[in-house]
C-alpha cells in the first residue's frame, strides 16, 4: 500500500494504483473523457488534471501513478482553469447540436461541461464536417463528433486484439480511422461493440432495433447465447428492452460482450413469438386455449404410457433453458412418466 494526500486528506491505495483510482477509492470525483477502466492508459484529453502540491505541476490523474508521500489538490484555480481551457478547445471542434444527438442523455462531454459551467461557445467554432459512415448493420460512425480521445482505438487493439481502428493524422486532424481508412465492414471488425459502449460522445452510435434511447431501469442477467456466461444489464423502458450494457462487477466478461450479446437480442420482441398454444387439426396448427392444449397432451401422453409403457415416451430438454427448467423436465420424465429417455443437444 502507498499513502497519498488528496486535498489534504490521506488516502491508502494498492501499489500501482493511479491518482484517479486513489480519488475514486476516497469518494472524490475527477472528470475524465479518454479514460475507461476497461482499457489501460489514457492521458490524452487532459480533463483529469490535478495539481501537485509544492511543485505546482499539473499532472493527469488517470495515468499518473500514486507514489508514497505524493500530495495533490483536485480543485485549485489552476486546475479549474486548465480543465476549462481543455474543454473549450474540444468544443471548438465539436458540433453543438445535442438535442438531435443520439447520445444527448449519455454524453460524458456534455455532463462534464455542464458541471464545469462551460457553454461550449467560448472559442470560435471551426470544424470540418465529415459524412456519417453507415457501413454495417450494427453501428454508425459520426466523426464530426469525435473528440479523438482514442478509447475506441485502444479498446480494439488492447482488449479485443483486433485492431480495426488506428489513429490517423495529428493535432486537430487526429481521428480514428478504420484500417487503411476503409469502410468498417471491409476491415477486420468483429462488431463486438466495445468501442461503441466506451465512446464518451456520440461519434459511435449503436443502431436500432436494439439500443434506442434511455431506460427506466436496468436488470442484471446472463447472456442467452454461448457458454461463456457473460453478465449483462438489460436496459428496459415501457416494458421492452431498449439496450444492453456490460460492466457488471466481478463478471467473467467485464465490459466486453460479443456481437450477438450486444446487438442480437431483438429476437425477444420479434413478431414471430408464439403467444398462444397451437393444436394440429385436419393437418393445420390452430390456436387453442391452454386448457385444451394441456388436456390434449395429458390425454395422449397417458394413452401412450398405458398402451406401450413409459419407455415409449421420450423427452428432449434444452441447453438454452434454465437449470430449474431442466431439473423439472427430467423430474417429470422420471417421476411422472417413469422413463429415463431424456436428453438434450449437449452433443450437437
Amino acid at each position, binding site marked *: 500500500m502507498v499513502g497519498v494526500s488528496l486535498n489534504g486528506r490521506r488516502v491508502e491505495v494498492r501499489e500501482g494504483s493511479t491518482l484517479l483510482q486513489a480519488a475514486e477509492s476516497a469518494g472524490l470525483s475527477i472528470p475524465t473523457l479518454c479514460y475507461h477502466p476497461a482499457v489501460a492508459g489514457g492521458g490524452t484529453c487532459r480533463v483529469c488534471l490535478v495539481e501537485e502540491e509544492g511543485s505546482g505541476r499539473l499532472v493527469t490523474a488517470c495515468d499518473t501513478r500514486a507514489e508514497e508521500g505524493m500530495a495533490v489538490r483536485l480543485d485549485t484555480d489552476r486546475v479549474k482553469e486548465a480543465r476549462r481551457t481543455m474543454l473549450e478547445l474540444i468544443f471548438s471542434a465539436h458540433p453543438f447540436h445535442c438535442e438531435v444527438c443520439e447520445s444527448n442523455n449519455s454524453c460524458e462531454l456534455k455532463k462534464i461541461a455542464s458541471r464545469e459551467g462551460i457553454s461550449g461557445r467560448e472559442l470560435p467554432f471551426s470544424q470540418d464536417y465529415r459524412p456519417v459512415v453507415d457501413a454495417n*448493420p450494427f453501428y454508425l460512425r459520426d466523426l464530426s463528433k469525435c473528440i479523438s480521445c482514442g478509447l475506441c482505438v485502444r479498446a480494439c487493439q488492447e482488449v479485443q486484439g483486433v485492431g480495426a481502428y488506428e489513429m490517423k493524422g495529428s493535432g486537430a486532424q487526429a481521428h480514428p480511422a478504420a484500417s487503411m481508412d476503409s469502410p468498417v465492414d471491409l476491415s477486420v471488425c468483429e462488431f463486438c461493440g466495445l468501442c461503441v459502449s466506451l465512446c464518451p460522445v456520440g461519434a459511435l452510435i449503436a443502431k436500432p432495433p436494439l439500443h434506442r434511447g434511455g431506460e427506466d431501469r436496468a436488470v442484471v442477467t446472463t447472456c442467452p447465447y454461448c457458454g461463456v456466461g457473460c453478465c449483462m444489464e438489460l436496459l428496459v423502458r415501457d416494458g421492452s428492452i431498449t439496450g444492453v450494457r456490460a460492466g457488471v462487477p466481478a463478471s467473467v466478461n467485464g465490459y466486453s460482450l460479443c456481437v450477438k450479446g450486444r446487438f442480437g437480442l431483438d429476437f425477444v420482441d420479434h413478431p414471430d413469438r408464439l403467444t398462444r398454444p397451437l393444436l394440429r387439426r385436419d393437418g393445420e396448427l390452430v390456436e387453442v386455449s391452454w386448457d385444451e392444449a394441456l388436456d390434449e397432451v395429458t390425454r395422449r401422453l397417458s394413452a401412450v404410457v398405458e398402451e406401450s409403457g413409459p419407455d415409449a415416451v421420450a423427452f428432449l430438454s434444452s441447453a438454452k433453458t434454465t437449470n430449474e427448467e431442466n431439473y423439472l423436465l427430467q423430474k417429470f420424465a422420471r417421476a411422472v412418466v417413469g422413463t429415463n429417455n431424456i436428453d438434450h443437444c449437449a452433443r450437437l
Partner: protein
Amino acid sequence: MTNSISDLEKADVLLLTGTNTSENHPVIAEKIKQAVLSGRTKLLIIDPREISLSRFAVMHLRPRPGTDVAWINGMARVILDEGLEDGGFIESRTEGYEELRRALEEYTPQRVEEISGIPARDLTRAARMYGKAKRAAILYAMGITQHISGTDNVSALANLAMLTGNLGREGTGVNPLRGQNNVQGACDLGALPNVFTGYQKVDDVEANEKFSAAWGRELPREPGLSIVEMMGAAQRGDVRALYILGENPMVTDPDVGHVKQAMESLDLLVVQDIFLTETAALAGVVLPGVCFAEKEGTFTNTERRVQRVHKAVDPPGEAWQDLEIIAELARRMGYAMPATSAEEIMREIASLTPSYGGISYARLEEGGLQWPCPDADHPGTSVLHTQAFPRGRGKFAVVEYLPPDELPDEEYPFILSTGRLLYHFHSGSMTRRSRSLEEKVGQGWVGINPRDARKLKLKEGSAVRLTSRRGSLISHAHITPQLQPGSVFATFHFAAETANILTNPALDPKSKIPDLKVCAVRLERVGGGEGDAGATAT
C-alpha cells in the same frame, strides 16, 4: 472446464485444439488474445482449419480431420522420449503409466506424420513447447469431441495433461469450452439418459433410492435413450411420443432427413418453444414458453459458474412460464410438484445434489458460484482436482487411433466438417430473427480451398451442390486457404442449407456423440438459374 476463464492469462502455453474460439466463444478468445499480447503466454494451435486466432499463435499445426488420437499420442510419446514428463505427478497422482508408455511406443513422429499429415519435426517442437511449460492449459471444443473417437480424443488430451502435471493448478487443465449458454447446466441437472442431477447414476442403487424417496415414486433404473438413439427408436415405433423443450433437431441433428422421418412416425410430438421452429412446425401440440429475458432462473457457464437470470420484461400474449407448463402437466397427470417457483426449485436441487448443495438465490445475488459448492459456507471451486481426482488417482487410458467412420472415396472425395459462425447461433431460431445479425450474414456458405475451387471451376459465391450418402443441398462457395485441400466446411445455422442434411449419424460408442466433423461429400458447380439455396433429401 477443470479451470476458470480468468485462469487462462496465467498459462505459459495455451494449447487450442478443435475450437474456433473467436467465432464460438468470442469473449474467451478475447482473454486468449490479451494473454498473448501481454507477452506472458504462448499460443499453440493444432486444428485442421486456420482460424482467426492463428495469427496470435507461435505455431499452428494442421492435422487431417479425424486423426486427433494419433497426434496427441505422438506428442505424449515425444514428451516421454525427451524426459519432459512430470515424474512426481505421475508417481503420486496417477495410475496405469506403464501401460500407457508401452502403448505410446507405436506413435513415433514419423508414423503420426503418415496418419495426420503433421510434419514430424513440427510435432516434436509442439510437444516440447507444451512439455516444457511450467503451466500449460488445453482448451478444446467440438472439433475434438464430435468424432466417433470423441471420448478417446478427450482421454488422450487428459493423458497429455497428467503426464506433464498440468492439472489441479491455475493456468493448467483440460478445458472443454461448452457451446450453449446452459449446456453445462442441462447436463448438471440430469437432462441426460443415464444420470440424475450432479451426475448421480440412475442405475446406482443408492442414488436411485434417494431420488425415489425424494420424489415419492419408484424411478426407472435402466439408462434411457440418447438423442440420436431416440430418432432411431421413433422410426422403429419403439418411441411413440416425444416431448421437446426448446430444441430444434430438424436443423441441428445429424442426417435431418432421417430425423424428419422419425418425427413423422411419432403418434405425438409436443414442442414447447418461443418460436414455431422447423421442429415445432411438425408438432401435434405447440406450447408457447418464455425467453431468457422473461423469466427467473440460473444458467451454468462453461467454467461451472452458476449465475442468475432475472426477469426484465413480460412475456408476449398468453405465453406461460416454462416451469408453470411442466408443473401443470404433472398435476394433470396426477403428480403434484411441491416446488414450482425457480427459487424453490433451486432449493430442491441443492438438497439432492452435493455439488450444488451450497447454492442458493440469496448467495447468487452477490455473483456467480462455481460448483462443486457443497455447503452454504463453501466459496465454490475455481480449479478442479487440486488434491485428488474423483476416483482418487487419475487413470491413464490407453487409446488407439481409429479412422473416422466415413472416409472420402472416388464418389465422395471431400471431407466435410460442420461448425458455427460468429453471427449466428445453433439452429438460428434466435439470431436469424435479429435484424442486424441477419442483415450481416443471411445465408450459409461452403468453405473450400482455392486449389479445389479451381479444379471445380468455382468462383467466390458460385452456387455449389454438396451431396453425401444421406442428402444433398445447394449453397455458395467461399474460397479460403483456411481450409486444407480435400476438406470443406459448412454451417448448420440456416435451415434450408443446414449441413445436417449431409452429416453422418455414426456415434461415438461411449459418449453417443455423432461424427459431425468428418463425413464424405461430393461437390459440383451448379449452372446458371439454379442458384438459390435449397435442399433435397435423398
